[in-house]
């Protein structure tokens, strides 16, 4: 198993107490698997993605272990994690393409980044050029400033850079949301290509857009209010969801071909619970049409069918 996460809990410290943003995540990502991590805002997906590589100031690792290729990641020790960052675990953060230093040429920026990791730019240059070429960028890109590149080009540069040292785990946080539709497809397909060529071993794609995940992910993990709700093969999670939340979510997505007059879609009424002091039991209870008395006990994640996990009393029944 490439990545193994066990009961990971990461809370945010605030003046009013701890916000339980990620409250017990347990899952595995296999070698070569592209796992989609989907959910709405506040569900904890970005927290999960960030905690696998760098806990920032307000985040606190409460419990849980993460193993990558059999080695335990020292998540709460920033210095020790440095060994793993960029080499074993890499991230393409949200808005990465807008975070490129505007007064540095791309090549210079890459060389500075590599130098900080103790990697020689000159030695890596041939491979860098090769990969840039693979994604359709010419060598001149290295001599350009970020402002001279289009959004799609910048995103591709960032992706090549993040995977330059062939990490075991790549975390892609909202890779395509800032892009135009026509570029989205190219970038999403590039992610698959990187996996196929062995530049990355496992990938976690964090997004709110289920349809992108349907296109490129092998499995999808649905999160809600800090908890995992469902995990399974992408096509099955979308076409035949087991968890009521997933079902309602999929049912609320408009598609090309469905019109208002023909089939009126419905959303999910209500709002996610406040994570400062969350209610006990299933966190989706208040908005779930299938909720019953036993939902005050938190449902465990069970493997109903090989490969399909769900955390719901009704689904498991």
């Amino acid at each position: 198993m490439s990545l193994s996460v066990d009961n990971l809990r990461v809370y945010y410290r605030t003046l009013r107490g701890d916000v339980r943003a990620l409250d017990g995540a347990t899952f595995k990502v296999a070698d070569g698997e592209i796992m989609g991590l989907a959910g709405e805002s506040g569900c904890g997906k970005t927290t999960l993605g960030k905690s696998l590589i760098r806990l920032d100031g307000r985040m606190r690792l409460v419990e849980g272990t993460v193993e990558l290729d059999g080695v335990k990641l020292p998540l709460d020790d920033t210095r020790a994690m440095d060994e793993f960052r960029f080499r074993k675990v890499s991230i393409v953060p949200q808005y990465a393409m807008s975070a490129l230093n505007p007064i540095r040429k791309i090549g210079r920026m890459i060389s500075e980044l590599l130098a900080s990791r103790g990697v020689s730019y000159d030695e890596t240059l041939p491979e860098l050029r090769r990969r840039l070429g693979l994604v359709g960028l010419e060598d001149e890109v290295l001599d350009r400033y970020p402002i001279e590149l289009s959004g799609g080009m910048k995103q591709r540069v960032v992706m090549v850079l993040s995977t330059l040292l062939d990490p075991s785990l790549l975390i892609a946080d909202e890779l395509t949301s800032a892009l135009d539709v026509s570029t989205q497809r190219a970038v999403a397909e590039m992610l698959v290509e990187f996996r196929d060529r062995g530049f990355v071993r496992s990938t976690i794609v964090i997004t709110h857009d289920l349809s992108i995940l349907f296109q490129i992910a092998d499995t999808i993990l649905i999160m809600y209010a800090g908890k995992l709700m469902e995990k399974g093969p992408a096509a099955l999670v979308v076409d035949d969801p087991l968890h009521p939340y997933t079902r309602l979510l999929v049912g609320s997505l408009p598609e090309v071909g469905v019109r208002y007059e023909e089939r009126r879609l419905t959303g999910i009424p209500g709002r996610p619970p406040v994570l400062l002091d969350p209610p006990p039991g299933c966190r989706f209870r208040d908005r779930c049409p299938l909720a019953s008395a036993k939902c005050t006990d938190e449902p465990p994640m069970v493997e109903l069918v090989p490969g399909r996990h769900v955390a719901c009393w009704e689904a498991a029944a």
Partner: protein
Amino acid sequence: MLELTDVTKVFKTGTFGGGALTAVSGVTLSIEPGEVVSLIGESGSGKTTIGRMILRLTDLTSGSITFDGSDVTRLEGRALHDYYAKVQGVFQDPFSSFNPVFKVDRVFEMIRGNYLRDLPPDAWNARLRSSLEAVALEPGEILGKFPHQLSGGQLQRVLIARALLLEIRYLVADEIISMLDASTRVDVLNLLGDLKARGLGILFVTHDLSLGNYISDRTMILRRGRVVETGVTAKVFGNPVHPYTRTLVASVPQLHKTWHELDRELQDAPLAKVGAAPGDGLVEVEDGHFVALAQEEATTT
């Protein structure tokens, strides 16, 4: 009818306005009461600029906009004030649309202070209540609250309620749901459908084809400020003719069809014969479906 005729907008760039950026070029469109027209385009297509021009937040460089026959292209002062009682807008970022130091009631108070001052308190409260009802909001859940205490979906509805206070005829909805969560998007979208049924004409600006397809009667596809394809929604998406439209349709990630399947479908779909009409106008593909002459532009990614 709200009508735009050959509208062009050129922005001055650089020091002392030496350079020029053409955001919109020769766009003609119309909205009838009781219909939703989608303006679909990617970034740089000019769709937001068109919305802003209709709302008179930006001036036109050339062309005209008429509202029920009268020219509103250069309205100012009192006439503009009256125009806003009939045409309003809602924008993309609900949190940015509210002044964070005030409560949300203020957006209603501003309308009342500028347009409905003569209304006695009872009548005002009744109108406020009915506007909130139309958007499915309880007065108790939003009045007296600050913007950060409400969700994006609630805020967008407050903004639509604000527009409804004025008994407007047309609404410009600029990417109003793109910043909302998936589970609440569709509720606001359905709300637009309800408003359409009440006779409101809506210009729905978006980059998301699925949304446009779901809610609009007619669609206009924009690229770099020009109209590329337009017509009845079902026909434009069912039978996309222009290469750009086809690229867009092929790139939209769908929930039950992979891109490969989509590609194969599009390949099999015949390109309708486009008559070799000279000049740059729109050519009729089929009844209610028009396309601009395709230019040999490679879509760079």
